[in-house]
Structures are given as structure tokens and as C-alpha cells.
């Protein structure tokens, strides 16, 4: 099972303030621990939203609306993520609880989300058949 530990943005991460050396060290130690347990699949940090854009579709079927960052409401944004592969939901929770407080000044927030995998999507044989038919159609179109 794959889980994503999402670290939420904070006023500091949005302002481009680097984490303290202590936090960086704790994070590195934690990442090493994940790797040494063989559960780490990947991790990335994101630039502040000042360099981001947001695409929205306010009208169904209409054109997309593009807004430049920065965006307000830091806690609605993400600052980074770590992807892990574990045997159970409980194991994922245990690892998430061991992640250091990602901010240290009161705004730290981690969200744990399970990643959809093929097994979850292929429980329904009808859906698989439809999916395969669609793929075949696309392949034939490509060949034509």
C-alpha cells in the first residue's frame, strides 16, 4: 500500500524562509530512517506559491481561468510530500507520527493520504473491461 504524507505550507514556507538547521537535520534523519526501513519511495519539496499558477474552471464546459500566485491561505496549500510503501494503514500512521514537526512554530501540519493503485481500481470487472476496450480503441486510432 502506498501513502503520501503531505506537508502543508506555512507562512514561513510561503515566504521562502528555510527551515532551521535543527529541523533540516531532524528531517534528514527521518528520511534516512524511512530509507533504511525500505519504505521510502520518494520525497520532494515545492517552491512557494509565488511562482505558481492556479487553473480553475468556474463555468462547466467553459474556458480555464488562470490566476498567478502567490495565493493566500497557506494551510490550503502543500509545501512538500513523502511517498511511502507499507503493509498496512497502521504502519503508515506510525511512520507519519514519527515525522518531525515540519514547522516547529505552531503551524506544522501533515496530512496522510492513501494512494490509489491498480488493485483498488480493478475490483470491478466491468470497469476493467471498459477500460481495456477504450485503450484498444485508442491504440487502433493511433495506428490509423
Amino acid at each position, binding site marked *: 500500500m502506498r501513502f503520501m504524507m503531505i506537508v502543508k505550507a506555512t507562512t514561513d514556507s510561503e515566504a521562502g524562509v528555510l527551515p532551521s538547521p535543527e529541523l533540516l537535520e531532524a528531517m534528514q534523519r527521518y528520511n534516512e530512517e524511512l530509507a533504511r526501513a*525500505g*519504505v521510502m519511495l520518494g520525497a520532494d519539496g515545492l517552491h512557494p506559491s509565488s511562482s505558481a499558477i492556479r487553473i480553475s474552471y468556474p463555468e462547466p464546459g467553459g474556458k480555464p481561468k488562470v490566476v498567478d500566485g502567490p495565493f493566500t491561505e497557506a494551510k490550503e496549500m502543500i509545501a512538500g510530500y513523502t511517498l511511502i*510503501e507499507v503493509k*498496512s494503514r*497502521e504502519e503508515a*500512521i*506510525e*511512520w507519519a507520527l514519527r515525522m518531525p514537526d515540519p514547522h516547529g512554530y505552531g503551524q506544522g501540519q501533515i496530512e496522510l493520504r492513501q494512494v490509489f493503485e*491498480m488493485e483498488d481500481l*480493478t475490483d470491478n470487472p466491468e470497469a476493467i473491461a471498459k477500460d481495456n476496450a477504450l485503450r484498444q480503441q485508442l491504440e487502433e486510432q493511433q495506428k490509423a
Partner: protein
Amino acid sequence: MTSSQTHRTIDAIWRIESPKLIAGLTRMVRDVGLAEDLAQDALVIALQRWPESGIPDNPGAWLMTAAKRKAIDLLRRNKLRDEKYAEMAQTTELYTEDDLERNMDGEIGDDLLRLIFMTCHPVLSREARVALTLRLLCGLTTDEIARSFLTAESTIAQRIVRAKRTLSSRKVPFEVPAGEELQERLSAVLEVIYLMFNEGYSATNGDHWLRPLLCQEALRLGRVLAEIAPEEPEVHGLVALMEIQSSRFKTRVSASGEPVLLMDQNRAQWDRLLIRRGLAALERCRKLGRPLGPYALQAAISACHAQAPAAADTDWARIAALYEALSRVAPSPIVELNRAVAISMAFGPAFGLQLVDELMHEPALKEYHLLPSVRGDLLAKLGRMDEARSEFERAAAMTRNSREQELLLKRAAACRGTQNE
């Protein structure tokens, strides 16, 4: 938290902590069976206390302390009569709480490595090595191991008990082998991990084509090994091979449960993340600057497939060259057979068939169903349908996997169809 929730949490903690715990305890008591018993005792105490007291901040250190206390209790009860416990007293007495903290952190990688070398020791049979490694390093229950191998739980339990006894009676040391022995013993470790992976990846009998738990455990253990033995190129080679093979996990079987051959798989469904990880592991291996070993070469072959956007884009000439390199470092008739396939794809079926025909009298391949299967395929490509059909039928009679058998019989029938037209 309800009590059943706490129990599930304790299970998860056990999975994370037990390999480290058993490794650390084995170092103290020098007996892997006793170490596991002590760790289990600590778990029992945790199961009694944690539902009421809550889960401690550092559950690993808590379990280690509890296990150590158990060890000392045992010692006192035995009043130092037993030599083994007397020896243990000397080692345990040296441990202070600080040492424990340090052990949980810094040197634990070394202890885990020693434990892997112990559970994969050549005094044990291959089956015993796999079972014991799954138990002690992956934290699987005997029930889970038994299910993965479609074996009775009592068989696995006995296998593990005997293995621990053998390690103890043969006085297998808790150490990382040095010098020339290291490479030999490391191959034994890698072999166990790859056996575990292959057992999961393609069951040799029964109706189950895939047994994911074993694959996942093997991959996880490989990733652990890559962190604690980063200087060994073949470790990264094996990890790369398993990552890339796992990337095709979901496309190997069709919705109706039939096996799908590599060339027919839907590449859009290959797991890009695992492919990327596999290529990165191969790069780590290459950076060590030593000649590629058998696992790295197999990974490089697997990488060729992973990097081809469509089956038709496969660089068969490169694959043929890699198989040739593989046949030099690890010669085997099976590698030759694969080389023949690559050559037929790169230069035409006639060239491949020539090589395959040379293998027809190879005693090691006498019962190997893929030989007639490959020969049938090449004959079919050359339009020799009669011969092709009889080869597919021969292959079908030889395989023990019923799904594969179905596929081969279908191909045999297709040969007849073409012929009648």
C-alpha cells in the same frame, strides 16, 4: 483508541521495530532463537500494558528495555547455572540505557546486516533461509509465510525452529564476513532475496500467477540492504532488477486472469515510479565503477525493455549484447536461450533458431517448458506451423502452471488454424 485499534497499532510498530530489536538482542545474547523469544516477550508485555498506558514516545527503545529486563530475569531464575546465560550476563551487563539509545540509532544498520548474513547462512537449506529471513527480517508471522508458500503453517513453523537450532548448534557467528568470504556470502544473501521475489513473482505451480506479499517483502529487504551495504554494486543491481520487474506487476495478468507476455503488456500501465527507482539503482551500481555482475546485467536488460516506449522500439541488439556479457559472468543454458530470443528479435528468427537447436540436447533444459515454447514461437515465425504446434503442445505438457498451460495450448491451436487456411 479502542483496544483493537491499539493492537493493530502494536502490530505496525512490531513490523517496524522487530528486525532492529532482534538484531540488537542477537548481538547481546549471541543466539538468534533466544533473541527472538526475548523480543516476543517484550511484545507480550507491550500488548498487556499499552492499551491502558498508551503508546510510549519511543516504542522501539521501550521494547528493547523490556526485552533486556526479561533477559536479566531469565538469568536470575537460572541462577547463572547455564553457561549460555552466564555469557549473556557479561554482555548484557555492559549495556547502559545510553548504549541502548545509541544502538537503536547508529549501529543498528550493522546489526541488521549481521542478522541478514546469519539468516542467509549456507549451513541452512535455501527453504530454511527464506523462511527465517521472512520471519526475522521482514517481521512476517508463520501464518503469512505459510500462505505465501501455499504450505501448512506447521511446516513453516518447524522449518523455522529447526533453522534456529542449526544456527545455534553450528555456532554460526553474528558477524559480517570479511575478505574473500564476503562476496561469496553476499551472493547467498542476494540469492535468498531474489528467490523470495521470484517465488512471489511467478508461482511455479498452482493457479496463482502472482503472490504479491513475497515480492513486496523481497523488494523492501533489498532496499534496506542497499542502505546498509551501499558499497556493494550487486546489491544495487538486484534492487534495480526487482524495482523494474515490479513496475510490470499489474500488467502481467489480464483482467480474466491470463498471463500477458512482456511484449503484449500495456506499457501505459507500467509503474513509472518503480522504473525510475530501478534506473536510479542501476546508476548507483554503475557509479561504483566495478564490472557489472549478474544481477546488474539482468537489471540492464530489464531496463532496455522499461525504456522502450513501445514493444517495437526495443533495442534488441543491445539486449543480445547484454545477454552475451551475462553468459560470460554467469553462464547457463537459460541465459543462452534468452540470448537466442534476443538475437532472433534483432537479426531474424532463423538466427535465433540456430542457437535454440544447439540447446535441444542440453540436459539442464530437458524439463524446461520455455525451450519448446521459444522454439515453437521461432518455428511459427518461419511459417513451419506443423513443427511449431508440436513444440507448443510439448511445452504445455511440461509446465506446472495451469494458466501458462492454457496459453500454450491456445498457441498450439492457433498453429493448426493458420495451417488449415
